[in-house]
């Protein structure tokens, strides 16, 4: 239906609309913002993982020359009496109150006109604590005597969190359960049973532009300039904290220097808002790269997966138990536990499934969404497990997958019927690109070659709303107002192409107004690859609304239907001069049926599915454990392509990010202290670290997506890690079950396999 009208704007690799600004250094980032009279805030952070605050001595800091003021939770309480925020739980205080829950938690802020002075003074603050027992491991947190929060405080709006209200003596921030078929019977009757446990370590987003927010008081309230992926959420949450109507809080977001899920919900916004209200001056807080390590991570996870398999290789039952290490504050972890948790059995057609997924509090940096919303952790487990089963049964990994994958029309674990999920096409395209059916050259020396494949899928978060406005000016030029944040993914360009396609104009002629909650309408957030589908549909409908109103205008001024009279002349005919506007508006919210509480079953779990597959070829040095990935193939189902070049770059960028999480990145901790909190010690992939890569999309269409499109930002991450682990197993016959895959881990595994294990360090 959406494919009927084509004016060549959709499907064109237009250069990004903002490329010139970015290439000339003129693009606007909050990083660059400086307001008259602005103070810089520097955060004093907890040095212990868990403890009661005995005292905070700010006297030396306050007396330091050049310091304007030092702020603690006691000052914040005067402007925000109940200063707890969060998207799922109202558990996170603006500054620590009574207790600290992780190393690096904000305790106080020094304000000064010179950021160096603020930093010097922050080092003069002395806090004393009575330390409490701490818990760091997500599985231990289930039964630990160390309890992170005295009482649980879920936000009132979510029915699936209500039973946690007021609970004490627990670290479980959400337990999600799914029951389908008869798993006990499947295991009792199985020819083979396989059980494995897989783990991932905490890693982090590290956008090159660290978190940064500025707040200023205005005549009517507050304006917050922030590097945020969720301007509408920030407005609503700050208004809630202050007890104000939404319209007194204005949130403006220019370009972001990367986001990847880090810059969602409230990060620095509540803090700068409180500070600006306390001192009645603009306040900027710009974190350093190091401080990002104390702000948000990706969940570490443990996944126990158990499968019943028939002798011919059909999976008949699966048990999934997943523990998510949420750190000290829930952030969006409970949603990951459920919204991604229900895909834990993988893209396989399995009649009997149980899932138990737990979101845990621990005394570590809070964990949240990171490019994949929990999916890469799940795929790591179920696709490693898939190869282990195939190898044990002496089945080809591709053949085993072909036998079991979810196909169009099959019911997924929730009972939702699969539609527009090109799982089979992605699997086949990966194997074709890998020449899987052809013999693979192996080596006989100490460096062994191997290859592996993997495939993963994700459901889009739902139900969520996007609203768009298309404004056609009297000269016929078009402007799009929407709150989607372009953090690098190319949404400005894609949305302009959609407007242009509907209005039969050039995408380059469409102007995009960036998120400004006084101007641009509501959008849930830019996350989870939801924007191209949700906002894309709203933008398409708003443009169609504008087009219909232009047709009405033509009729009104007596222009015959089908006439190609320039739009500007329609306005002149009506207003007798260049005047007036046509405003097209639309909102889009897909249908959704919440899962049943006991069974997780629903006929409509998601508006659309994303699919990502990967293939890897590796060389493993058996004398050092060093792994060189010599080829990495990524294939995604992203529906139709609005802008093919941007799609390819999103796929390859996502794959490289996940490659870093697979081979080299991990937050190292010792007793709750992060020991590698810098770019110098925590190495993200440089250009010399990355393997030769091919990234492409399968020919597919999302029937209700804008012009058949759907999200692309995360699909490239899904399958990279297990494809590489499977290739390593293929090369040297050892299984790595924990990310990242370090040379040491591989070498230890080889030695253990040879019956000559290394002693523990």
């Amino acid at each position, binding site marked *: 239906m959406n494919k009927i009208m084509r004016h060549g704007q959709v499907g064109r690799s237009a250069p*990004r609309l903002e490329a010139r600004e970015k*290439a*000339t*250094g003129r693009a606007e980032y909050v*990083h660059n913002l*400086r307001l008259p009279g602005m103070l810089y805030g520097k955060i004093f952070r907890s040095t212990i993982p868990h403890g009661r605050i005995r005292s905070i001595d700010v006297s030396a800091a306050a007396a330091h020359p050049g310091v304007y003021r030092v702020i603690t939770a006691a000052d914040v309480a005067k402007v925000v009496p109940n200063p707890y925020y969060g998207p799922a739980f109202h558990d996170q205080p603006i500054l620590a109150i009574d207790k600290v829950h992780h190393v690096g938690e904000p305790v106080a802020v020094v304000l000064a006109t010179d950021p160096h002075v603020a930093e010097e003074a922050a080092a003069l603050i002395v806090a004393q604590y009575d330390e409490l027992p701490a818990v760091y491991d997500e599985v231990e947190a289930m039964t630990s005597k160390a309890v992170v929060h005295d009482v649980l405080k879920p936000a009132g709006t979510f029915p699936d969190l209500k039973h946690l209200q007021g609970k004490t003596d627990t670290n479980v921030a959400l337990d999600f359960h799914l029951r389908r078929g008869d798993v006990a019977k499947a295991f009792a009757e199985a020819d083979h049973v396989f059980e494995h446990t897989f783990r991932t370590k905490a890693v982090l987003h590290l956008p*090159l532009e660290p978190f940064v927010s500025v707040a200023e008081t205005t005549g009517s309230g507050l304006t917050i300039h922030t590097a945020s992926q969720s301007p509408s959420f920030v407005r609503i949450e700050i208004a809630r904290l202050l007890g104000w109507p939404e319209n007194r809080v204005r949130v403006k977001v220019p370009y972001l220097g990367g986001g990847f899920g880090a810059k969602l919900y409230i990060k620095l916004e509540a803090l700068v808002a409180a500070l600006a209200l306390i001192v009645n001056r603009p306040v900027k807080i710009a974190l350093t790269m190091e401080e990002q390590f104390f702000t948000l991570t990706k969940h570490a996870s443990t996944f126990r997966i158990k499968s019943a398999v028939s002798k011919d290789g059909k999976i008949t039952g699966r048990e999934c138990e997943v523990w998510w290490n949420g750190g000290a504050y829930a952030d969006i972890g409970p949603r990951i536990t459920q919204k991604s948790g229900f895909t834990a059995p993988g893209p396989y057609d399995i009649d009997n499934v149980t899932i138990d997924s737990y979101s845990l509090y621990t005394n570590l940096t809070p964990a949240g969404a990171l490019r994949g919303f929990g999916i890469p952790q799940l795929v790591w487990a179920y696709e490693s497990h898939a190869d282990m089963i195939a190898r044990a049964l002496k089945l080809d990994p591709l053949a085993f997958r072909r036998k079991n994958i979810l196909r169009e029309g099959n019911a997924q674990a929730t009972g939702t019927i699969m539609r527009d999920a090109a799982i089979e096409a992605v699997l086949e395209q990966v194997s074709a690109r890998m020449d899987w059916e052809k013999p693979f050259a192996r080596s006989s020396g100490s460096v062994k070659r191997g290859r592996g494949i993997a495939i993963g899928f994700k459901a889009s978060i739902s139900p969520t709303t996007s609203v768009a406005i298309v404004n056609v000016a009297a000269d016929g030029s078009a402007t799009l107002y929407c709150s989607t944040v372009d953090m690098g993914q190319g949404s400005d360009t894609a949305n302009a192409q959609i407007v242009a396609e509907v209005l039969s104009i050039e995408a380059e002629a469409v102007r995009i107004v960036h998120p400004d909650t006084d101007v641009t309408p509501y959008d849930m957030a830019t996350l989870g690859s939801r924007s191209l589908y949700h906002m894309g549909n709203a933008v398409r409908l708003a443009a169609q609304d504008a087009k219909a109103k232009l047709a009405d205008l033509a009729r009104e001024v007596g222009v015959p239907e089908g006439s190609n009279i320039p739009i500007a002349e329609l306005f002149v005919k009506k207003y007798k001069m260049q005047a007036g506007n046509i405003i097209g508006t639309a909102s889009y919210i897909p249908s959704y049926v919440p899962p049943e509480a006991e069974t997780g079953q629903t006929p409509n779990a998601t508006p659309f599915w994303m699919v990502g597959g990967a293939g890897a070829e590796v060389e493993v040095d058996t004398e050092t454990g060093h792994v060189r990935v010599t080829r990495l193939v990524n294939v995604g189902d992203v529906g139709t392509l609005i802008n093919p070049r*941007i799609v390819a*770059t999103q796929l390859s960028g996502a794959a*490289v990010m996940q490659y870093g999480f697979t081979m080299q990145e991990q937050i190292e901790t010792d007793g709750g202290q992060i020991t590698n909190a810098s770019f110098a010690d925590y190495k993200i992939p440089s250009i010399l670290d990355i393997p030769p890569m091919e990234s492409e999309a399968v020919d597919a269409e999302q029937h209700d997506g804008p012009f058949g499109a759907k999200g692309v930002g995360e699909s490239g991450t899904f399958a990279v890690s297990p494809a590489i682990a499977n290739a390593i197993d293929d090369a040297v016959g050892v299984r790595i079950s924990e990310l990242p895959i370090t040379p040491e881990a591989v070498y230890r595994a080889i030695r253990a396999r040879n019956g000559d294990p290394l002693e523990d360090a």
Partner: protein
Amino acid sequence: MAAVAMTVNGKAVTGDVDPRTLLVQFVREHLRLTGTHVGCDTSQCGACLVHVDGKAIKSCTVFAWQLEGANVTTIEGIADPSGKLHPMQEAFRDNHGLQCGYCTPGMIMSAIDMVNRKGNDLDDHTIRQELDGNICRCTGYHNIVKAVAAGAKAMKGSSAPAQAAE
């Protein structure tokens, strides 16, 4: 405070700065040339890369006062004053060599420096070796390599100076 005078993008500039002021802070905060970005603060990422007397320098590694009399070029100084982009900027635009854009100014300045040292015909291997000091978290690098190769070629036939404003 320390007085400092240098040439930035062809213009003589002076400043009275705290001695601990880094070149990147001088450029961004005193001159308000905000195209030079701060990423890591610890000399890994290369988002703050500028040219000093014809050499690529991470501007978070030097104090402003150390550059008395120096000739500095930032990302704002390489396009033609008429608004026509430098060929390397054009190449990053045409080859989708950027996403969030935060590392882009440093990448472009690094790429121009590479052409100055290595010439206009840059193979894939050379480009990758030379860009090791510039980190990108978004793009996966592949389009950056294509952009640098194309930009290097375009600089050959262009009147754009390899080192602007010098």
